[in-house]
């Protein structure tokens, strides 16, 4: 048995030895260096670009503009609306305009500073509410990217008959992924003249297709390899360095390396979407929820990236993990000239969790009910209808997570003034929302008598390589890990889809199970389970041509109704409850998270240590989101003024694993990557209220904001 065991990660040894080759470490003989010239204006027409001084610098090999693009100058995971290199107009500060290729990195950067650009400024649409009214269009189709609704029952009527109603506005800001490894990669032509790009990425097959369109060559002529990747969290889903590298190699025919500086990564890469949320909740005196009405306005910056995805996912998760009979959600995403917001761990759901969890506590306060009890009363469970009227037929362990927390909650005691306790719950649909998002893989046998797993899944540190191997071993009934992993290379794997939406354990895990069934049948026929050594089977097979065993899984979902979003957008959901204890210093405004209990229904923990690692990491990111992280365009330029949680900021965390097995998942597993983060900020905010009586409705609750709120509160009380 490998499932449920703490199998050590297959990548850990190389990493502790310092041998793992990250994208930053890639190198090749004769390689050149590229860097990008970026816009210093948020919205402008490019009047004139003078590269003469840059070109004259010794060591500069090539300067590439949009005119040098052989194929299509547009990319985007959802919609192709973002140019690789600006063509006549820039729409955000940091947008790529030119690529400079030079003999050294220093020369490339020096040359990029010598480029003179004349801009003619256009109106800077700096927030979504301006975007709504502005006659200036960021794209021809208008400034509204997406509008999604969730309509269930009759919310307006239900409010009329509700005993209590609470209505508030919440807002969140840009968050940077801040993976420790910035975007980087190496491009080159192989012996046959094919384009190869190795990079720090979350999705190799998608990037292969984008490069093929950019260069107007068939996808088979492109090979993308995932280098060891120093974190992703959604930020390496979009094309980053890959397109620039491909262009630079295309024009110079030499290997080219590039990496973003930290400042560049902060300036130019995608961020978490800031959302403005107006939230109205109705309930009866007994605590049962009657209706929820939510208006969400989001800022996606000038390009889609994952804006549509966030718009829809935020909408369908807006009620939180509760039974709400009447729901009306309007979720709208606008283009602006702010940083491009894209995918980040949770796709809008952590922002909504702040709102629904705060609301629930306010309702509980009004009717004099305990926060845990009101959650238990309304919790989604097996047989419940979600906000999209999906019946939860299988795994739905929210109540079990609440029960896991219950003893700690009931026994909580404020040790000192300023201490407080808060709860946060969440549910999260595993995989993409209401669209096909399959994973495929294949297995084969080697002459040495080993099984070879060919996987296109990008392990970005979460441990999917190890988890998939564990699944395969158990699916084959193998006693030891007699499996070779061939991974992260479009030449040797099938498309497994992106490492996002907490989908790889569930979806790619099922694809592996599918392939394993076929291999198992074959091994049975060949006598493996009767004792014939794998080596002999492989030798026999080699004479006839080694067979390939393909695996495939696409989670069963239905497309959301275009008007009401009703339907079954996900095949399964993860559930969680976090309880957080904070200490607030009422004089300085410093809030310290002291202790977190985090209970997660993961279906089945394939690797307990990995699951806990995700929970701890998610808590850390949630602490950052709640208390310190705030990307301010034009101001947040480095970690000097974009604060990340250190070891000193971390609370003690008790991770509790609940296993309500998911029958459609691999050995019952679902996912945990994003769920680990989602309820954390909400739990902190509720704890701050418990400690101080102050409702923080804007994130982050950093020292200044909290201090201001405490001072205001004191004045009001006076």
């Amino acid at each position, binding site marked *: 048995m490998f499932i449920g065991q*703490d199998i*050590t*990660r297959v*990548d*850990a*040894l*190389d*990493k*502790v*030895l*310092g*041998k*793992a*080759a*990250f994208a*930053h*470490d890639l190198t090749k003989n004769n390689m050149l260096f590229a860097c990008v010239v970026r816009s210093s204006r948020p919205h402008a027409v490019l009047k004139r670009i003078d590269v003469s001084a840059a070109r004259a610098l010794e060591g500069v090999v090539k300067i590439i503009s949009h005119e040098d693009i052989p194929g299509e100058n547009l990319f985007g995971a959802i919609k192709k609306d973002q140019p690789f290199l600006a063509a006549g107009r820039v729409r955000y500060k940091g947008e790529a305009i030119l690529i400079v290729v030079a003999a050294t990195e220093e020369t490339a950067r020096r040359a990029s500073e010598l480029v003179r650009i004349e801009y003619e400024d256009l109106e800077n649409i700096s927030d979504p509410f301006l975007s709504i009214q502005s006659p200036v269009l960021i794209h021809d189709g208008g400034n509204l990217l997406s509008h999604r609704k969730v309509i269930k029952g009759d919310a307006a009527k239900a409010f009329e008959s509700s005993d209590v109603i609470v209505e508030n506005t919440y807002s969140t800001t840009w968050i940077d*992924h*801040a*993976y*420790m*490894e*910035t975007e980087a990669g190496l491009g080159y032509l192989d012996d046959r003249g094919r384009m190869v790009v190795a990079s720090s990425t979350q999705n190799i097959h998608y990037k292969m297709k984008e490069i093929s369109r950019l260069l107007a060559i068939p996808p088979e002529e492109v090979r993308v390899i995932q280098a*060891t*990747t*120093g*974190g*992703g*969290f959604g930020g390496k889903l979009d094309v980053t360095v890959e397109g620039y590298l491909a262009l630079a190699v295309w024009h110079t025919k030499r290997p080219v390396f590039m990496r973003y*500086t*930290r400042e560049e990564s902060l300036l130019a890469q995608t961020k978490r979407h800031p959302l403005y949320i107006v939230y109205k909740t109705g309930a009866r005196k007994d605590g049962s929820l009657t209706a929820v009405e939510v208006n969400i306005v989001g800022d996606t910056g000038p390009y889609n990236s994952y804006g549509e995805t966030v718009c829809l996912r935020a909408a369908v998760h807006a009620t939180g993990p509760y039974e709400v009979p009447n729901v009306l959600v309007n979720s709208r995403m606008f283009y602006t000239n702010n940083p491009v917001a894209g995918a980040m761990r949770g796709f809008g759901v952590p922002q909504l969790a702040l709102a629904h969890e705060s609301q629930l506590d306010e309702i509980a306060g009004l009717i004099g009910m305990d926060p845990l009890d009101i959650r238990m009363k309304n919790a989604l469970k097996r047989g419940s209808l979600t906000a999209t009227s999906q019946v939860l037929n299988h795994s739905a362990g929210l109540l079990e997570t609440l029960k896991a927390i219950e003893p700690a909650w009931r026994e909580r005691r404020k040790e000192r003034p300023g201490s407080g306790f808060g709860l946060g719950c969440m549910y999260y649909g595993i995989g993409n929302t209401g669209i096909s998002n399959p994973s495929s893989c294949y297995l084969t046998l080697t002459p040495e008598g080993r099984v070879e797993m060919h996987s296109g899944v990008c392990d*970005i*540190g*979460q*441990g999917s390589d190890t988890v998939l191997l564990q699944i395969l071993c158990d699916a084959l009934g193998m006693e030891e890990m007699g499996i070779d992993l061939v991974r992260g290379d479009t030449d040797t794997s099938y498309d497994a889809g992106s490492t996002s939406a907490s989908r790889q354990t569930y979806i790619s895990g099922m694809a592996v199970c599918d392939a394993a069934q076929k291999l198992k049948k074959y091994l049975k026929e060949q006598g493996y389970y009767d004792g014939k050594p794998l080596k002999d089977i492989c030798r026999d097979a080699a004479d006839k041509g080694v067979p390939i065993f393909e695996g495939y899984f696409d989670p069963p979902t239905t497309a959301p109704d275009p008007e009401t979003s009703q339907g079954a957008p996900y095949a399964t959901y993860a559930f969680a409850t976090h309880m957080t204890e904070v200490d607030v210093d009422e004089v300085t405004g410093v809030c310290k998270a002291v202790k977190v209990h985090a209970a997660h229904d993961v279906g089945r923990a394939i690797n307990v*240590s*990995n699951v*806990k*690692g995700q*929970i*701890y*990491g*998610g*808590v*850390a*990111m949630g602490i950052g989101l709640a208390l310190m992280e705030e990307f301010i365009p034009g101001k947040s330029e*480095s*970690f*000097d003024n974009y604060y*990340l*949680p*250190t*070891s*000193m900021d*971390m609370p003690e*965390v008790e991770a509790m694993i609940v296993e309500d097995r998911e029958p459609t998942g691999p050995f019952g597993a679902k996912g945990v990557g994003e769920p680990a983060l989602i309820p954390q900020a909400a739990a902190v905010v509720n704890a701050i209220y418990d400690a101080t009586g102050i409702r923080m409705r804007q994130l982050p609750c950093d020292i200044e904001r909290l201090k201001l709120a405490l001072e205001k509160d004191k004045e009001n009380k006076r």
Partner: protein
Amino acid sequence: MKTIRFLLNGKEASIEVEDNETLLCALRERLGITSVKEGCGIGECGTCTVLVDDEPHYSCLTLASKANGRDIKTVEYLSSSGVLHPLQEAFIRSGAVQCGYCTPAMLLSAYSLLLRNANPDAHDIKEAISGNLCRCTGYIQIEEAIKNAAEICKCNGQD
């Protein structure tokens, strides 16, 4: 350019460096020691940590010329005897490694702590790695690993 000589992971090394060159750059570019990472280049993340005379330093802020005559250690030192150091073992076993980008630096900060303090408590451990950012792990399994390794080192009488 000037020539500097120093101990690198216990062996004599000698290289030519520019006056304004950082130790990070010299180690990565001239000596090919890519276990030393650059996460920010300005002393904010700690992924470039190396030991100078057994004390952790950000190599992105240290001039290469300052290494002259000093004892420089990178993560390679920990397994230079051919076996994993208890810290490395513990990092693997405790799940302290996710993406691994911060790992070599974390190991060095931890190693330096154990040299100074064979019995670190939870706070000592937190403090010792507080200059090393990790975006993946939430630090908890790293702290567990350091604690476990400290126990083992004590039993082995190892540094």
